[in-house]
């Protein structure tokens, strides 16, 4: 059995255009590159703000954070030696399990996390 990650892409309009990735499946070292590749594709096509809907993500390990770090860099977010701060990449509706991992790594201080898509979209 191989892990899979499906990525459905949609566009939302708030204060500024926002691309939404609705992710379904597992984000592990086997699927990390799928997420990065899709992000690179939409950023290349002009996306400046990306919201990752994690509500259907059943598993996420450190590979997910590495992917997000890479994506934040491509979106032009600040990455110093001691901190990552993202105003162009935000998260929506992580499960309790994924939230626990995010907090365990202290990643909640790097990325804004929302439980309402309208608030998330309008925050960009």
């Amino acid at each position: 059995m191989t892990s899979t990650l499906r990525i459905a892409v949609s566009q939302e309009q708030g204060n500024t255009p926002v691309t939404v990735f609705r992710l379904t499946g597992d984000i592990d070292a086997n699927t990390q590159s799928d997420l990065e590749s899709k992000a690179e594709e939409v950023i290349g096509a002009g996306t400046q703000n990306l919201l990752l809907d994690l509500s259907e993500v059943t598993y996420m390990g450190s590979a997910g954070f590495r992917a997000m770090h890479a994506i934040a860099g491509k979106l032009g977010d600040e990455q110093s030696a001691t901190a990552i701060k993202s105003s162009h990449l935000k998260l929506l509706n992580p499960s309790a399990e994924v939230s626990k991992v995010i907090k365990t790594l202290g990643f909640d201080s790097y990325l804004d996390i929302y439980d309402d898509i309208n608030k998330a979209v309008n925050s960009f």
Partner: protein
Amino acid sequence: MPGKQRLDIEAQLDNLSTVRRFIEESCREFGARDGVISDLRLAVDEAVTNIIIHGYQKQGGNIHIEIERDEKALIVRLRDDAVVFDPASRFTAGPPTAQAFESPGKLGIPLIQRTVDHIDHRVTESGGNELTLKKRNGDIFRS
């Protein structure tokens, strides 16, 4: 209900979901609580990922996984024949920095460290690695 389960896999990233399912199903059979299952599944996934990427340099190899329940703990032993690596050399005290995101092991090991109660490494007789991960603190079993 003491018991033991084993899984042997080829060191390939597309086997990670098989490893996670094995840990989850074994833990359920052993009566572990949900939070314990997710912690152990995460820790083992990170450890196996490190073996595949860093230990075997994505060139393949064997990984032997054993999970055991005794009276008070869940114990996972991972054995491989990759280059010797003791994760204790990468333990961190605080949250990971941005630099940690550039290397898989620099994030994975802090996650392992924060999700299990005991980590032990030894070099095997054949010169490989045996990594032992334990969940033993608190109320880890349903009954």
